[in-house]
């Protein structure tokens, strides 16, 4: 059997689970959760250095960007200008060209502003960035992003941090069927089984933050997600049985006493 590989923006990843590094109790918990998840790519945000408390630990004291792929995001950006500024700074910081673009449109739902997102994708691709794009689950718009040169499309399962799970399986399936770039479900996954469902549909990967960080035992949940993603992928590759409206016995009727 052909080896199942996951390649995004020219990088081969061992794990199909990408994890966020926000919302943890402390950096030690972040690092332990990342380790338990088995992820080889993590999202990070770009923010001002705390100049008043320089002794405060920083993320890179706990996660080494030489050992794990950092995917800088544009969380909190509501315009193309803000997102571009953030990612250009991120590139200068570490030389990363691989980035996660998210341009938000509404503070209550955190839905992406797709007009600004498409505009930003075009500029970033022109500047040589490899862009993984957080987007709505609209197949027409994910196709547009792909045509603009996105390295991966990342439709939401449901609103960021909501934990509502995969709300529109049909749209996600349509996106998977038509996409030539990896499809990674981002945002809204609430628990491990949600990730399995996404992977069983045929997603290339899932991106999880809140569902792990907000769990009562984040390290255990990170491990649960690792297993869930592996299971979901195996199940997708194995191919599920057909659904039938009526029962079909599992034991042979021949030889029945």
């Amino acid at each position, binding site marked *: 059997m052909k080896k199942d590989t996951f390649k995004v923006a020219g990088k081969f990843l061992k794990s199909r689970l990408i994890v*966020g*590094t*926000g*919302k*943890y109790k402390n*950096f030690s918990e*972040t690092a332990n959760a990342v380790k338990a998840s088995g992820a080889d790519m993590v*999202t*990070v*945000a*770009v*923010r*001002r*250095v705390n*100049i008043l408390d*320089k002794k405060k630990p*920083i*993320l*890179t004291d706990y996660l080494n*960007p030489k050992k794990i792929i*950092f995917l*800088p*995001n544009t*969380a909190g950006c509501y315009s193309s200008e803000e997102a571009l*500024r953030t990612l*250009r*700074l*991120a590139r*200068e*910081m*570490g030389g990363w060209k691989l980035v996660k673009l998210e341009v938000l449109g509404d503070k209550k739902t955190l839905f992406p502003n797709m007009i600004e997102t498409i505009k930003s994708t075009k500029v970033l691709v022109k500047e040589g960035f490899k862009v993984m794009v957080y987007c709505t689950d609209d197949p027409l718009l994910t196709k547009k992003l792909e045509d603009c040169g996105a390295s991966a499309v990342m439709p939401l399962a449901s609103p*960021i*941090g909501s934990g509502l799970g995969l709300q529109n399986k049909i749209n996600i399936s349509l996106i998977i069927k038509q996409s030539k770039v990896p499809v990674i479900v981002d945002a809204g996954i609430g628990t491990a089984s949600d990730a399995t469902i996404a992977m069983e549909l045929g997603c290339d990967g899932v*991106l999880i*933050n*809140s569902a792990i960080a907000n769990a009562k035992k984040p390290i255990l949940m990170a491990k649960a997600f690792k297993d869930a993603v592996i299971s979901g992928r195996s199940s997708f590759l194995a191919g599920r049985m057909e659904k039938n409206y009526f029962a079909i016995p599992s034991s042979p009727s021949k030889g029945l006493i």
Partner: protein
Amino acid sequence: MAKIQLNGRKVVIKPDSSIFDLLKKLKLSQKKVAIEHNGSIIQKINYKKKILKNNDKLEVVTFIGGG
């Protein structure tokens, strides 16, 4: 002395300080930050050359946890 705005706060620095000098004073590793000076990103190789002047606006950013 020069008065600059550093990450939104007014800060007084020694005259003719470069970005490199400021990072040293702040005990910040240049590997872990990126800097925007009056709206333009400064490449790390230019930190020693870029001298800070009165009313300059400096943004020093780093990676933090995020989803």
